[in-house]
């Protein structure tokens, strides 16, 4: 384990940024947001970023290919504009977002492999940061995630005036070597004490005990036909906020944007909250907001674990709790579905 005084953190950032793109969370008008590092930037102290870190591997908009049309020659040229094979480092990913990558991997790295996603995963180095100040909206412990000890290529802990680094992978070791040059080797004790403190705080959080086992114990159809759906959806606006801030929501649509010279074919995040989601020629299976609302929560709490050895499609980051315009969210739904006792 290596440690570095917080005052030297920017020297470390500069050393990385000199070689490849580095993103760190900084405070901005929309809360903490990952931005490309520039000299003098100060890292945000926020518990988490407003948008999740999935953007790095599964961006909201991604151009797949361009077509250039020449009307005179009556020709179509295919232009490859792929850019996802660039090395980059993300610093400060929390345990919940790190766990979300494992969920996205199950979708995008299983056959057929999504090469856009895979290239980004291969070229990205993830430096996680253990949580020091969990919030009331955090419930990662419900999914067995340890906020004090996130995975990633490198794990860091901010303890007092020091940042402790531990490499977990080969890619991570190369990065920690850069810290070793300006930092010093350190004992594990302060980190172990810090972890114990975080665990104590996590144990005191108000919404960590949602009754997921009760939901899982019931059959799929019983959950699907539960009377709670008739009530819970009623004031849902059908906007896509929850799906867009969610680190595990993975649905996309492929669209074409016509320009004067041709076509930009891009994919963008889609939302099961939208009326044209999975629209087929006969129309839409989910005719009202009730069905759309049910789909989102059934996917995370029932369908995904059914198909993935019991792993839930939620990591308890709490972003939907903070962002839903009407404060409807997965915790309220899970409590209604699982029962309050």
């Amino acid at each position, binding site marked *: 384990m290596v440690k570095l005084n917080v005052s030297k953190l920017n020297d470390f950032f500069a050393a990385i940024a000199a070689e490849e793109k580095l993103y760190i969370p900084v405070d901005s*008008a*929309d*809360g903490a947001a990952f931005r490309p590092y520039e000299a003098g930037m100060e890292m945000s102290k926020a*518990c988490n970023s*407003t*948008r999740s870190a999935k953007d790095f591997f599964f961006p*909201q*908009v991604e*151009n797949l290919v361009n077509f250039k049309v020449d009307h005179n020659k009556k020709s179509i040229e295919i232009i490859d504009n792929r850019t996802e094979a660039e090395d980059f480092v993300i610093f400060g990913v929390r345990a919940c977002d790190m766990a979300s990558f494992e969920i996205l991997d199950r979708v995008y790295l299983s056959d057929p492999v999504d090469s856009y996603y895979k290239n980004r995963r291969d070229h990205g180095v993830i430096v996680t940061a253990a949580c020091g*100040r*969990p*919030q*009331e909206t955090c419930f990662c412990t419900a999914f067995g995630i340890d906020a004090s000890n996130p995975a990633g290529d490198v794990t860091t802990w901010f303890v007092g005036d020091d940042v402790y680094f531990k490499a977990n992978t080969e890619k991570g070791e190369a990065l920690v070597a850069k810290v070793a040059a300006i930092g010093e080797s350190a004992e594990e004790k302060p980190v172990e004490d810090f972890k114990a403190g975080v665990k104590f*705080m996590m144990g*005191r*959080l*108000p*919404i960590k005990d949602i009754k997921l086992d009760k939901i899982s114990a019931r059959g799929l159809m019983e959950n699907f036909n539960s009377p709670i759906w008739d*009530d819970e959806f*009623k*004031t849902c*606006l*059908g*906007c*896509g*906020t929850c*799906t*867009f*801030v969610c680190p595990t929501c993975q649905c996309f*649509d492929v*669209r074409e*944007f*016509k320009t004067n010279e041709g076509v*930009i074919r*891009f994919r*963008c*995040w*889609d*939302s099961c909250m*939208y*009326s*044209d989601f999975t*629209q087929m020629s006969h129309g839409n299976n989910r005719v009202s907001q009730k069905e759309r609302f049910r789909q989102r929560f059934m996917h995370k709490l029932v369908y995904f674990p059914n198909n993935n050895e019991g792993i839930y499609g939620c990591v308890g980051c709490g972003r939907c*709790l903070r*962002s839903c*315009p*009407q*404060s*409807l*969210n997965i*915790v*309220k739904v899970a409590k209604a579905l699982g029962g309050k006792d």
Partner: protein
Amino acid sequence: MQEAMIARAKELLADGSVSRVMGWKKGEFSYDISPAVFENADQLVDFVYDDFCGANVSKYLINESKKEGKILAFLKPCDSYSFAQLLKEHRIDREKVYVIGIPSYGKADINKIRAKGIDGVLGIKSEGTDFIVDTIYGEEKIAKFEAMSERCLTCKSKKHVDVDEMMGEEGEWNAESKRFDKVAELEAMTPDERFEFWRGELSRCIRCNACRNVCPACTCVSCVFDNPNSDINNKAAASSFEENMFHIIRAFHVAGRCTDCGECSRVCPQNIPLHLLNRKFIKDINELYGQYQAGANADEKYPMVNFTFDDCEPGIVYKRGGNQ
């Protein structure tokens, strides 16, 4: 107030005057309140009305008034303007709604409390002019006006329109409201500065559509941006041009009908001050066509669909510094 509202709702449910109640439901913490429809008196155990009931419930009455039976709706002054505007547009069946006006002395915004560095909020108690905030990390105190949402600090009216019954005291129209100050500030900028300002704000948009879906003036059954056959439906912007246009088109579409309830800015997860676009239109309408408040008067024709010989000439754009 809350207890009196629950009692009155129970009375109206019991005597059969109404069959449902539109109001607000408590959440996990004290700030995460959801609008809700209560189907019977037992469900009212979760009914809440306090400093965090900022959500405007008027738009829900479009669908609710299509159902069997009458619904009781508790409306704050700003909600009542949206309600009246929707009546004017024939979107709500007035016969199906029983409206009780309730006072609002300004609603709090949890994000303003968080911005003061108060985090881990578990509960918030009102104590005189302060909030006592119980957090995971100890107790904090914040003055109510510091926690009040921007739209309430610049409140236009504490007076209702079109209610069947009032509970609590009726307020007044606030002629002193400073709601156009920020718009005037933007108008004073050079076009380049203004463009920079809006690029900075709108570039953060994630096209979640929360602003559109919450907006009581956005009531198309199917929005042009959702229609796969419209050729402009996009779930994300392919270019920054589109990003700007979505909000500008929306602002044009609700011009003259927007009551300035401020829900668009409240719900934006990216903190974009969208209400400023609408306020610019309201300010322009006031200046070019005379004072006009959407929703205030059911009989008044609104300027955008009216013609008078006194209407301003299109050339006004050039006089204001636009390019010839």
